[in-house]
């Protein structure tokens, strides 16, 4: 027990607080709501930091049935995901205090569910076996739905339901796999390198490959991988901006995390390398990378464009994982970290623009850089990072991905992969940079007279600036991160 009990606190304090916020009657003043919620954020963040620094904690809570333990284990991979949650959630929370003040009536509900999601996300990163992971994975779907349809317009509700049913559909694909793994593994705990029981597997390899594919597709739903990506461009834009930021940078990553656990910690890369599963998976990710960028390029609605960008970028990560090669996997893990930071900053700045000006389409955003310079500067920096222009962070992860791909001996995909990545990077530049260019250089016919400074309050700017700074900083000083990730990858591959 000792320190590992902290895990329980970090998970259940925000969940309990969230439920409390939802259940209690409305606050008289907004201040007490904000105070209450921020205490929740603060405590959780501190606890989570302590756990991250401590590392390697184990906690067997109890068993709900044979082979079904609720078991937490903070390993190196947990720490990567725990880090992004701990960076993004509190910053988005601070931002939300300002952003949501616009929509007075239902703030309480927003923060209630937001806190719950915080706890559930942490629980996911700490989960030590697949049953615990699945438990919190479903809870995450259920507790994040109200964030999606927060405004409760018909459109929002439909998007929320779509999100829910896609998520559950994915979860059941996964569950299908878990049922079989229960029979064919030594333990359902996550063990680097896989836990398949080869004696039992012998003769049923074909079946297990189907199972693996089903689990990859299942978790791929959350990660926005084709063929079950369609919920993402609906659900992310319709949510309030802080929620979209959390969805796009964190919740999506939990799908990635699930795939990571399945491939590298249950099946083991050895079992899947060179099979049809790997090739199908690689193909799917490459199609998604290209498709996402293309759709983003064509999309005029700002937040929707960012959502398509998420579809594409997350499949970069999946592509790297599917290669099952150490360089590429390093790239993937780095991109997990970088994309989380970048995408949340992008969504938050989009939110700030909508919040202040009400403009939702990119073609109406001319001159926005003059009105909201601080926001747009952060936006531009993050765009550069996402495109992968050195020295910003995206460059490093993409470099690893490309070299990793070239180092494999997979036919066609070894060279096609980097090509697709490059094309997609080009498209990324095509859909992000014009916003910045038009924003800062609106052209001679722009009406400078009625220009007013519209930068929002510090509460909104500071989180965005911190995230943008991180996006650049990771690129300039990547070595500590890279060495950590290299060690991590060496242990699973």
């Amino acid at each position, binding site marked *: 027990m000792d320190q590992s009990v902290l895990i329980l606190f970090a998970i259940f304090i925000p969940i309990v607080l969230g439920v409390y916020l939802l259940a209690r009657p409305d606050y008289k003043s907004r201040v007490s709501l904000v105070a209450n919620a921020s205490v929740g954020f603060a405590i959780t963040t501190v606890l989570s930091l302590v756990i991250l620094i401590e590392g390697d904690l184990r906690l067997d809570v*109890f068993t*709900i*049935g044979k082979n079904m333990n609720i078991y937490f284990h903070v390993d190196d991979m947990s720490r990567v995901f725990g880090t992004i949650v701990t960076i993004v959630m509190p910053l988005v929370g601070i931002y939300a205090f300002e952003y949501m003040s616009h929509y007075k009536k239902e703030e309480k509900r927003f923060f209630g569910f937001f806190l719950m999601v915080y706890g559930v996300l942490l629980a996911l990163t700490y989960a030590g076996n697949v049953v615990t992971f699945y438990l919190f994975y479903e809870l995450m779907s259920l507790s994040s739905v109200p964030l999606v349809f927060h405004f*409760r317009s018909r459109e929002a509700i439909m998007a929320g339901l779509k999100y829910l049913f896609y998520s*559950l559909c994915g979860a059941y*694909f996964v569950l*299908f796999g878990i*049922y079989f793994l229960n029979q064919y593994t030594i333990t359902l705990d996550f063990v680097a390198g896989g836990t398949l029981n080869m004696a039992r597997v012998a003769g049923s390899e074909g*079946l297990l490959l189907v199972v693996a594919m089903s689990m990859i597709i299942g978790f791929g739903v959350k990660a926005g991988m084709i063929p079950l990506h369609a919920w993402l461009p609906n659900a992310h834009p319709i949510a309030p901006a802080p929620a979209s930021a959390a969805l796009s940078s964190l919740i999506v990553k939990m799908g990635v995390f699930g795939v990571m656990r399945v491939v590298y910690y249950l099946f083991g890369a050895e079992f899947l390398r060179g099979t049809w599963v790997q090739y199908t998976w690689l193909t799917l990710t490459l199609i998604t990378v290209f498709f996402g960028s293309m759709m983003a390029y064509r999309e005029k609605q700002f937040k929707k464009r960012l959502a398509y960008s998420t579809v594409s970028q997350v499949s970069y990560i999946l592509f790297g994982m599917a290669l099952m090669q150490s360089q590429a996997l390093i790239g993937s893990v780095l991109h997990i970290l970088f994309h989380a930071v970048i995408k949340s900053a992008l969504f938050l700045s989009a939110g700030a623009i909508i919040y202040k000006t009400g403009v939702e389409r990119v073609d109406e955003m001319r001159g926005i850089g003059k009105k909201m310079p601080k926001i747009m500067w952060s936006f531009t920096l993050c765009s550069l990072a996402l495109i992968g222009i050195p020295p910003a962070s995206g460059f490093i992860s993409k470099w690893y991905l490309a070299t990793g791909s070239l180092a494999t001996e997979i036919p066609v995909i070894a060279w096609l992969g980097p090509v697709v990545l490059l094309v997609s990077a080009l498209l990324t530049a095509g859909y992000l940079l014009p916003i910045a260019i038009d924003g800062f250089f609106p052209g001679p016919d722009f009406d400078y007279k009625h220009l007013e400074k519209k930068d929002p309050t510090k509460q909104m700017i500071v989180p965005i600036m911190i995230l943008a700074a991180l996006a650049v900083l990771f690129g300039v000083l990547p070595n500590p991160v890279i060495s950590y990730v290299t060690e991590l990858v060496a242990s699973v591959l």
Partner: protein
Amino acid sequence: MSQYWILVAILLPMVGGVATRFIPFKKEKQMFFFVEMYMIITSCIVWGLITGGTTEVFHVVHFVNDLSISFKIDGLTMVFAGLVSVLWPLATLYAFEYMEHHDRQNTFFMFYSLAYGVTLGISFASDMLSMYFFYELLTLSTVPLVMHSLERDAILATRKYLYYSLGGAAFALMGLVFLIVYGDTLEFQFGGVLNMAKIGGNANMLLWIYLFAFLGFGVKAAIFPVCEWLPTAGVAPTPVTALLHAVAVVKAGVFGIIRLTYYSFGTGFLRGTWVQDVVMILAMFTAVYGCSRAVKESHIKRRLAYSTVSNLSYIIFGVTIMTPLGLVGALCHMVCHAVMKICSFMCAGAFMHQTGKKYIFDMDGLGRKMPIIFVCLGLSGAGLMGVPGLAGFISKWNLAAAAVDSKNPVAYVGIVCLLISALLTAIYMMSIVMRAFFPPHDFDKNTIRNAKDPGWKMCLPIIICAVFTLLLGFFSTPLVQFFRTVAVGVY
């Protein structure tokens, strides 16, 4: 405990029920108290019996040869009798409040109690004939409950129910007759009673007979293509639909199928034959069919009824795997589904009772007004769709584990069907909960100004069932352990 208590347990609610009809109570309250008292006493006796360890056969009446009405307590009895004896007093408590403003309450409670005794009879029956006897009685004693309102649609529904059930029983009788001819005895024995020497070259015919008898019992278990009576019978008052059409009657059908498969024909005889594939595919199909009909249905009780159709087939799917683990899964889902479904039916009834409405689109915004009801409904709904930590997850886990373990490719497809059906369950249950808690932003709150949670008599059973759903989800180990011993025929 002496085995004579079995007779007491079966007769007490029957006698009490008849007495309820004829004692001139001054106040409703007295009647309620009287009914609840003998229900609880009966349940206590039942629990005394099943924990008491009596295993002798107790013959009540002897007909010719070895035909008799006789009782015995074995593992399956413990599960089924234990289950109904917990739920019956709860549902009765619920019925008091629900039936408050209805006519002919004493008649209602008479038949409600009769059905209790008869159901216990089914579970204690030690041979096919005794079970058949009580099985028919169950049909007859529940008919007046279905048509309680005496309105036209109730009478039509009753007629349908009666025809389906009697027809089914006739098919079941066929199985009984052939068991007399080809079996050693009619008594239930784990592993089956068929005498291979007598069968000779007639094995294939016996498989056909099994199929017929399976479909016969399958009527009550609402298996496709004989499931349509169940949603129609939803016109009955909610305590009847909740208890009888989600637990007692339909599970008696499943119980019959288990007796038929594991204790009469024997899995050794059936496993690996074409008939196993047929019944398994029927169960799989029904599991998906019921759910898809439920999604289409907007009448709350009919939706839940179709959901029952689907879930009963989960149980039957477990049965048709025909391995001990399959039986474990089946029993597990039998218990878990009973708890969850009775809870959701009671919630639906509470909604109808408090607002007078019946359709799902009338539920907008009620979550805040009737928090207890809708939180419990949400919980049982999440349980039905199999969220981990709730009862449904455990039972599906066991079913799937059995299917994987059986190494039968058809059963693998069955897992897929279970999951498709789980997704559909999510659609039809979650859309209700969403509506109730998150109405569209332009929703007019004044339309539901007066809605509120019902009184304690309705809330208490609902809460208890919701708590069971949670407890089963987290502390299922001893129960599953017990099912394992049952499923290898220890008891």
